[in-house]
């Protein structure tokens, strides 16, 4: 059925020409290219029409410069472009002895928006890459043009640097303070703080840049399996083996360390068994939790009550995630199923299952929400295209047979170039592994933990990129990405900082610090709560049956 005839028929008795034009403009926009096999041809038309009509606000508003706001990276470079860039890069390196770091510095100054740059940048990149070595001459030419033309032409930015072959995260801080294994670690939304929760029932807030302990929240009656920051960074939710979820108010700007934080008075009570994983919705008004009792609950955060219960799985739910715009929820369970739910209606939209049916212990949406990363107990992390229901990548190299590991996505690449994505996960042999999302190659393997690494998170703070990991050995480790050139200096500085940190971490609550450093299993450490002593492994979620 043709679009235009349809619209004519629908609006037969009215004349507004501009409106029809505008609505057609929307429909023909190439943005909506759905590969949904559900949508048969005519239905598809109808869908498109609905979608566009829902989204168009037909107000004729004042003219504004169109701006693309929601994008992690505006610039996408094709492969041949990268090749040209590579040549240019090498020649540039030969010419300037200062090396990569200097150039990337310059890139930062010239082009302040390497991420979300938009199309103009891309075009400029293109021109520049073609012209290759003519860079300086072209800038001059550009300036002469700018004298004549009314709008000055900005100097073209340097071409995107080649895709790095490996990552360079280096150990920066070793955060000790938890009395037992640490099961979850998360950067705050603004990346300025790190929250960690562990088997000792405590949530600790650390400063990302200094590694200092800011706050400790205690109140759970059993170990904590999962934590989640609210989107505004003012609240942390923690899910515990005592079957409750608690909210904690994070007080920013505190200078003195080790202030006992207070729990929000109303805990989220409703689960019949251990809470395994929780996630806030992007607005912070909803919280999704998955539990050992096989249910997925949607909580109204304001009233601390269950809004909706999803009849999710027939086995303990191991992982939960919410997509960036909040419309989808992913859940997974040890029955081997990954289910995608519609947040608004609570309906299951897709179920993903691998042929071998390995237990799925954690699930994570990609930053753009088009893919799902799932951890399974067959030593694999898989990337799924959930719309088509296919596994498109399998990442291997780590050990994952018994524990519920988790990780996430990170971004790498020079600041002036396009961002590349990597997937990161812990491993049961004490390593943290980073894979390139596309090539599946291990970009970096970080050893350091003496036990299973249970949680990893990444962030970008200012110009720097950080990673944090936690494990059964009771430590939280912070890593910082460094350039290869500055490697030596950075390592020394990091070591020094870590040493200083170790010295400062001598807080009253931890006496057996040296002992714990050497013992891989935290069960020997002094425990404050007696009921925890009986079950040393209680927060290691999703053990294989």
């Amino acid at each position, binding site marked *: 059925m043709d679009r235009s005839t349809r619209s004519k028929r629908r609006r037969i008795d009215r004349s507004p020409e501009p409106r029809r034009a505008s609505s057609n403009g929307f429909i023909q926009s190439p943005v909506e290219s759905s590969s949904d096999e559900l949508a048969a041809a005519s239905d598809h038309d109808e869908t498109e029409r609905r979608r566009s009509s829902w989204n168009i606000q*037909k107000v004729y508003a004042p003219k504004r410069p169109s701006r693309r706001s929601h994008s992690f990276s505006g610039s996408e470079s094709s492969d041949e472009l990268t090749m040209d860039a590579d040549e240019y890069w090498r020649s540039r390196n030969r010419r300037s002895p200062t090396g990569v770091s200097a150039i990337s510095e310059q890139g930062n100054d010239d082009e302040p928006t390497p991420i979300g740059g938009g199309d103009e940048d891309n075009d400029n990149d293109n021109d520049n890459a073609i012209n290759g070595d003519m860079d300086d001459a072209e800038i001059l030419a550009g300036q002469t043009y700018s004298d004549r033309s009314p709008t000055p032409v900005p100097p073209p930015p340097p071409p995107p640097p080649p895709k790095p072959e490996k990552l360079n995260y280096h150990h920066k801080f070793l955060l000790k303070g938890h009395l037992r294994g640490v099961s979850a670690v998360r950067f705050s939304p603004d990346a300025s703080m790190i929250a960690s929760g562990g088997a000792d029932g405590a949530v600790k807030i650390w400063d990302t840049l200094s590694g200092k302990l800011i706050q400790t929240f205690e109140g759970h009656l059993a170990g904590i399996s999962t934590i989640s920051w609210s989107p505004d960074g003012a609240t942390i939710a923690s899910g515990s083996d005592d079957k409750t979820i608690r909210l904690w108010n994070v007080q920013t700007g505190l200078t003195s360390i080790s202030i006992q934080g207070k729990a929000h008075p109303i805990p989220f009570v409703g689960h019949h068994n251990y809470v395994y994983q929780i996630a806030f919705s992007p607005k912070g008004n909803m919280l999704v939790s998955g539990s050992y009792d096989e249910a997925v609950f949607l909580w109204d955060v304001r009233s601390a009550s269950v*809004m909706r219960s999803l009849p999710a799985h027939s086995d303990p739910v191991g992982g939960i995630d919410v997509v960036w715009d909040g419309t989808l929820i992913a859940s997974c369970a040890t029955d081997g199923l990954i289910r995608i739910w*519609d947040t608004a209606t609570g309906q299951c939209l897709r179920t993903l299952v691998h042929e071998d049916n390995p237990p799925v212990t954690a699930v994570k949406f990609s930053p*753009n929400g088009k893919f799902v990363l799932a951890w399974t107990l067959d030593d694999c992390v898989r990337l799924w*295209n959930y719309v088509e229901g296919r596994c498109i990548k399998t990442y291997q190299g780590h050990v994952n047979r018994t524990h519920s590991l988790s990780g996430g996505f990170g971004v790498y690449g020079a600041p002036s170039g396009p961002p590349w994505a990597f997937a990161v996960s812990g491993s049961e042999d004490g390593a943290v592994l980073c894979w390139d999302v596309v090539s599946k190659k291990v970009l970096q393997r970080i050893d350091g933990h003496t036990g299973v690494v249970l949680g990893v998170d990444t962030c970008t703070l200012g110009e720097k990129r950080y990673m944090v990991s936690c494990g059964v050995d009771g430590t939280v480790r912070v890593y910082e990405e460094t350039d290869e050139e500055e490697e030596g200096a950075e390592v020394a500085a990091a070591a020094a900082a870590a040493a200083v940190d170790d010295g400062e971490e001598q807080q009253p609550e931890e006496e057996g610090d040296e002992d714990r450093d050497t013992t891989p299993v935290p069960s020997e450490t002094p425990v404050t709560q007696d009921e925890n002593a009986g079950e040393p492994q209680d927060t290691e979620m999703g053990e294989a049956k």
Partner: protein
Amino acid sequence: MNLSLIDPFVLAQDYPDTLTEKLRSGHATCLRFNRKGDYLASGRADGTVVIFDIETNGVARKLRGHTRQIQSLSWSRDGRYLLTSSQDWKCILWDLNDGSRVRTIRFEAPVYIAELHPYNHLLFVASLFEDQPVLVDVSSPKPIKRILPSAPFRPPPPKGEEVDPAVAAKQAAQDAKHSTCVTIFTALGNHIVAGTSKGWINIIETQTCTTIHSTRLCNGVVILLRLASNGRDLLVNSSDRVIRTILMPDLSQLGIELEPPNIKLQVEHKFQDVVNRLSWNHVTFSSTSEFVTASTFMNPDIYVWERSHGSLVKILEGPREELGVVEWHPSRPMVVACGLETGCIYTWSIVTPQKWSALAPDFGEVEENVEYLEREDEFDIHPAEEIHQRRLDQEDEIPDVITIEPHNKSHVDEEMESFCMPVLLDISDSESEEDIVAVGPGTMRRRSPGAGRDYANAGADGDKDTAGGRNGTSRGQKGRRR
């Protein structure tokens, strides 16, 4: 993100069909969605304003400041500010970031309807009970009120012709009888559309506060004016029991292609119930303005007409009480209305059935039987490693996990909708649904008399009014406008 997974047939449905939700917090008398459609403001008979979160159906914020029934609500474009008008002769502009009052504006009469300028939240227009409508500028703490004319525009007499003084005096006397009942801004806010008690529509220039055009639409009082989200269609509810849709001229072309004498307000459709002669409490456009919906007087039904043919497509049924204000969600096929007796907020939307094939990926929903064909290698046995390796080798796609595709929405929207209401963890929702118990058709009583009433004591004189509103006597106040 969920659009690619949702059944296209469900997406194709334009209007709601089933009563799905019942929200309650006190006795709601008026409703309004914000532009984004994630929050619903409801004004109560006791003067409290309650903001509901549509996603959780929970109370997001309560605003206390009015002492009598709320008459109208108006959101700012970015959803941060809310203007409320009340029968206590006040308008309050609220900042929803912290729930504080930005401005409190007092008038010399009860306020019918106050509406914010579409782009400037410090400018609004208010129509007053038996008084001249005013344009209020609250950019400074002391509000500047400018009185808007109610009299219809009389074209100046042709040159050289004398106006008969008697005729002029008669006209002036007639003009003096006009009083404005409702005022709204046009889409750009450069003009104000006003409806008068004599059935006239006046178009007033915001800048100069002068009437540039008048049309006589009907004999009855213009009760309500609504502008569609595209700004080109006007919906008029008047006391002659007819709902009219009007195609608005493009007023931004004034002075360029359009001259004030050439303005024409052309009636597109007249919706009415010829048989029952129903009159309409409240009217609204649908999100795409393809549909018009209205709640009926003395009748629990909500009528939905479609505009392309002007035919009635649906009568929404549900509660057994008369419904007052009806609102359509700004992007979804969802209608909310509040009951006059109980003050409950009813929600109609589409109920989607669970697709069973979504739960079991190896099952498919087929229309008819499909012949089973065995594939050549279907039951071949391969070593597990080989299968695994073969699978790995097939993974040669280049997924982009970072880039977020730009939305279909216009850029202006995304820019404006940056305000995010903070989530309050200590919302005291003492008045739950159980507070009011139905003891018979149309009669309600409070389960625990006096409990949860302390909120109403904020204004001493508001108390009596509150009690009256709960027993259903707010009908009288409503009726005064008719």
